[in-house]
């Protein structure tokens, strides 16, 4: 039932997305709302989110294939597959964001190793390969020693790339809002958090229910998520207070925008209420947390919350003028500091999600991902 719903959703999303993709390829960036001041928009946020989730998913998978925790026996392949799909979605988002996507090869053949962007692209490519091969082994030769080696290696890469995401923004001295102490460090945590959430979602809603360990898994994943959520909120508080007390005008502005400014609703309603409080309350209650449905949906809420959180890191950092009177000195399309994703951007993102969902589901159909299937 749920699966059907998911399929329906995926297909629908993809249909809407189709128009978005068309517009993107026919008219380039013309109809995007991001511009030369808020240069990065929804797609970059989604990229950070998906990529992070991928890394997180992989970390979770190591519980099975690297650390062999009995509790998580069998979820590894699911997690890996989730990670792979998610990573694909992430890279697809960022690719569409390029001004000249046909030149992406240059990053590989003429790249600048010093650029965090370069490191990320290479990192994620490598990471993608590792996931794929690990998955292959996990299915074909679950006992091969190589799997363990790969998982170990992959864990390192996962930590590195999700750190890199933070660095990507963090190294920008020009953007004080990102240029704060703990910034890069946070991202691995984010990743793990979203990985856990993703698994909650998958196990809760899509995995076969007859796995005796399931309830226990959900409960532990739930607690893990809660813990990570708390840490994440702590980091956020640290950033914001740092920014506000630091008193750097640009930062104070940025934080104000998030807390009380044009992004208040995204922050308070989506990120805090829906994305944090509700899951928190539900997941600390053993009864609910153990329940497939509840756990799964909470996973979804958590993911949504994290997605929003990514956006709330990107946009505010960019939507504060580096120089006052910039907008009053020369106006024109794409020269504004107010950003709200355009229809085209939403459509493309929806399409990407659609692809991801369908991709994932198809995987669950045709790949032996669940513990059961293997034993059979």
């Amino acid at each position, binding site marked *: 039932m749920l699966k059907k719903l998911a399929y329906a959703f995926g297909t629908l999303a993809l249909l809407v997305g189709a128009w978005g993709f068309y517009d993107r390829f026919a008219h380039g960036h013309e109809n995007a709302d991001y511009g030369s001041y808020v240069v990065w928009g929804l797609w970059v946020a989604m990229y950070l989110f998906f990529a992070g989730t991928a890394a997180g998913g992989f970390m979770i998978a190591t519980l099975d294939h690297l650390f062999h925790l009995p509790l998580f026996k069998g979820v590894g392949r699911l997690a890996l597959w989730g990670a792979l799909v998610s990573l694909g979605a992430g890279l697809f988002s960022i690719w569409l964001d390029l001004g000249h996507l046909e030149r992406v090869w240059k990053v590989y*053949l*003429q790249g*600048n190793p010093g650029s965090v962007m370069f490191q990320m692209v290479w990192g994620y490519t490598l990471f993608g390969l590792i996931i794929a091969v690990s998955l292959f082994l996990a299915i074909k030769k679950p006992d091969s020693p190589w799997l363990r080696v790969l998982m170990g290696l992959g864990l390192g890469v996962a930590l590195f790339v999700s750190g890199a995401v933070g660095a990507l923004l963090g190294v920008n001295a020009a953007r004080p809002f990102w240029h704060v102490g703990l910034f890069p460090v946070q991202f691995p945590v984010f990743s793990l958090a979203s990985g856990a959430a993703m698994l909650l979602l998958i196990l809760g809603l899509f995995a076969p229910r007859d796995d005796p360990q399931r309830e226990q898994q959900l409960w532990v994943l739930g607690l893990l998520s809660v813990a990570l959520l708390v840490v994440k909120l702590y980091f956020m508080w640290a950033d914001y207070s740092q920014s506000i007390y630091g008193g750097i005008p640009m930062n104070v502005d940025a934080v104000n925008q998030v807390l009380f400014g044009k992004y208040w609703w995204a922050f308070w309603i989506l990120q805090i209420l829906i994305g944090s409080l509700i899951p928190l309350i539900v997941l600390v209650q053993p009864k609910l947390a153990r329940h497939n449905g509840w756990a799964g949906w909470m996973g979804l809420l958590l993911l949504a919350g994290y997605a929003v959180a990514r956006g709330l890191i990107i946009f505010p950092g960019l939507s504060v003028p580096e120089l006052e009177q910039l907008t009053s*000195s*020369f*106006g*024109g399309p794409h020269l504004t500091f107010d950003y709200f994703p355009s229809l085209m951007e939403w459509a493309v993102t929806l399409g990407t999600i659609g692809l991801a969902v369908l991709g994932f589901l198809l995987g669950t159909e045709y790949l032996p991902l669940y513990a059961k299937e293997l034993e059979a």
Partner: protein
Amino acid sequence: MTMTTKRKQQKLSRRDFVKLSAVAGGAAALLGNLPSFAAAVRRAQMAGGGGFFESAPENQIYTVCLQCNTGCGIKVKLLDGIAAKIDGNPYNPWTLWPHPDYETPIQEMATVEGALCPKGQAGIQTAYDPYRLMRVLKRKPGTKRGEGKWITISFDQALHEIVEGGDLFGEGHVDGFRAVRALTDAEVAAEMKSEVDAIWNEKDAEKKKERVEEFKIKFKDYLDTLIDPEHPDLGPKNNQFAFVWGRMKGGREDVVHRFVQESFGSVNMNGHTTVCQGSLYFTGKAMSSKWNEVKGAFDSGDKFYWQADTGNSEFVIYVGTNLFDANYGPPQRVPKATEAVVAGRKFAVIDPRLSKLAAKAWKWIPIKPGTDAAFALGLIRWMLENGRFNQSYLAIANQAAATQAGEPNFTNASWLVKIKDGVPGKHLRASELGLLTAQTIKKEGQEVTVYVDAEGVEYPGDTPVALVNGVPTPINVLNPEAAPVIGDLFIDQTLGDFEVKDGMQILLESAQEHTISEWAEIAGVKEEDMILLAQEFTSHGRKAAADIHRGPSQHTNGFYNNNAWYIVNLLIGNFDYAGGMIKASTYDRKGSKKGQPFPVMSMFGEHHFTPFGLDILRTKTTYEKSTLFDGTYPTKRPWFPIATDIYQEDIPSIGDAYPYPIKILMIYMSSLPYSLPGGQKVIEILADPQKLPLFIASDIMAGEASMYADYIFPDLSYLERWEFHGSHPSVPWKVENVRNPAISLPDWPTVKVWGEEIPMCFEAVFLAIAEKLGLPGFGPNGFGEGIPYIRPEDFYLKQVADIAFGEKEDGSDSVPEADDEEVRIFLEARRHLPKSVFDAEKWKAAVGNDESLWRKVIYVLNRGGRYESFEKGYKGDKVAHPYGRLINLYQEKTATSINTMTGKPFVGYTAYIPAGLSSIGEEIKSDGDDLHLVTFKTMTMAKARGISNYWTLSVLPQGHLFINAQDAARLGIKDGDRVRISSTSNPEGVYDLQNGQKHPMIGTAKVIQGIRPGVVAFPLGFGHWSSGAADLEIDGELIKGDPRRATPLMANGAMQLDPYMGNVTLSDLAGGSAVFYDSKVKVERV
């Protein structure tokens, strides 16, 4: 050619290099050997050199900007025949200071360019404006004027309709040009003219009547050609064609003069002077009125004005002069002023607004609008009472004394003025004291009257008188050889039965009407500031100046504001001095100097028509002289004895058919409803075919005025046409700027006139009407037997030739001939122009196929004009081209002219008259509207015309209403609020477009500190309801307007109307100005 090919090769080789390095680099890249790769490409890219179109003289045409009226020389840089970039013409004194030598070869100038303002840079977008008209538009029959529904018709069809008239719009018969040109016999016209002059000069009312009767008898066969036989001095029906222009420069102006007056025979052609800086010109005219030594009376002066010699003044007071945003003009005056800033040379700015200039000034004086004369009189009083004025200069009473003292000019400060009941009137004449007696003697065989004094010394006529050491002395004003007269000053006594004062005494008394603190009080400024300015102004000898422009000028008392400030200057005697007040001078383009090859104005095939009669603006004669005079005042509309070109009176006079109805109005480059205060009233009349039967416009788009026309004829933009832009007073050098075709638009239509294929343009309309009506002065013999005027350039190239030849009979003043290389470049630079625009043979033929002259013409065109060399601008501490004659400190002519709205004479001396009075001199109640509305120009906008320049709109997309934070707080207005401007004259705060639409005067408030509390201001250029801002329907096709061109704000419609006439803005009846700064308005949030 060599040059360009060489460039191509370079380019190729560079290209190859890029390819190679790309390949090599690509490989290298794969080997991870990046820096070298990058470096290779980098080198390739920066190799530069090859093929930069901008730097080749063959891709450059020198012409003249007309984005605003400053007329800076420009260099249009062409790529594939498209104007790809515009920069400053380096030969031109506007764009470089000092400007390089005129004789520098153009090859050397190819990479040199001067500075232009942002509008000049954006000019490309004026030419390549998608809303440019390319077809003749006719108002769609059955639709009302201004509805925006048009049909296209062929040029020939359009010409046929406007010439022959008929029932053109299904609204009944309309007279065409043929019918309106009722009087066609030039001789009769000439005779009638002299009779009419006689009627006007007849002082006795009865005799006047008799003369009229005689006239009717003498011309009984022609009475039907007159507008009104009872009033023959209204002239022939020909006068019922009126031609009104907004922005028109030399060349076209000369053609208009030929067509309207000498060919068609109408007196009615006038420009927009009074909407611009009218009173400035006519104060100049009054102060320069010339002494006629034979008549012993004043002739009228020159329509001109003075400006400060910005670059050499040690201290300048800028009064209502918007130097850093507008004026004549930024590229020319700004660098001199900003140099003063860093060099620590002070300047002060008197302006209710903190203009950009004021922001850089030593002092900003936020004066109360309309009180400039009060401020000046405060200064004058201080200067006079503290002896800080140039006594010895002012005492000089005639040319002889000036010559002796080495002064470039002199004043009538010491001339005695008769005082009747306390009112200064005429100058005392020597004969009135018996100092001179008239005698008739024989000179060269004929009787002449001369005046002789006791010693028997002869004077050409009666003279004014000065006291010399107490002794009344006749003044031989003009003759440099005559006895020098140094007059006593501050005279107040009776001579014989005359009470007399000299100009200085009258000035002193006027200045003493208030104490300095009272003057300060009136002007709303601090007394200390006034004194500080006076001290500073009088601490630099003659190297100080007070520079005035629209700020003081466009008020009901503009004439007197301007005069007061000119007098401030006159008191230190800075006229004609470097760093003082100077005037413009240009090379003669009319061929009026001996020896010039083409006396174009008088080269006239069949002898020309003599237009006569009263003009619709009532400036050609006085009410009292005309047959309309019935002894009663006020007249229905004012007459203008001093000013001319009263733009704001054109349409209302047509509306009131006063003094007579107009049947055909043609406008050129004018946006009357937009540019004029109270423009909504102009619309009412333009939209009414009953009041104005036939309305024709020449325009480049459907503008705010032409949208009401019956026919619009497309014109060429300033980058495509001819004109002579002339100069401005702050330019000391003798110059002439020659606007000539730099581009031709893709698919631009041509028309066939006089068998010639010429581009669709303004001139084509005149040439074609002339062809149809067989008017003199046009056609194969237009300039005389066998000298054709059949193409636009036939006229203009002759003028270029005159300029090239110069002003010395022996030709020693002419420019060099262009050498072969310059000729080659000239031709090649025009390779993109179609034959209809540029045909070397035809151009050369226009200057009589004189090879030498042709090469000189090329020499001038290659430089976009003619510019005297830098050193020649000054002679020692004076300017080389001085004004150089009598300056009237006291104005007898003004004092004897009658204001027909009050019946009283105008004040002839410097005086403070409150601003904002109605035409009949009454105060105007403004109930509750407590904010004083003023307006100004902003750098990125030019007139109604700037709106097509999207580049500059990126810098400033709309015009705000600027309001002081104190007022804003009081009215609860926050920065960015939308506000409506309304007034007692326009309670609704809208322009009724008379087409079912109302255009609101709603804009965005900008709350600032830099404006005097109580004053609000808006910039010119926004708030359009046409000019591409509104949809058009042509041949049933919808042409959508562009919202970027419809942004607010235009608030001229809220300005005060004259309560007595009701359909016109307030005016300065002496100086003619339309009034922009004397309105009270209401501002409210919406």
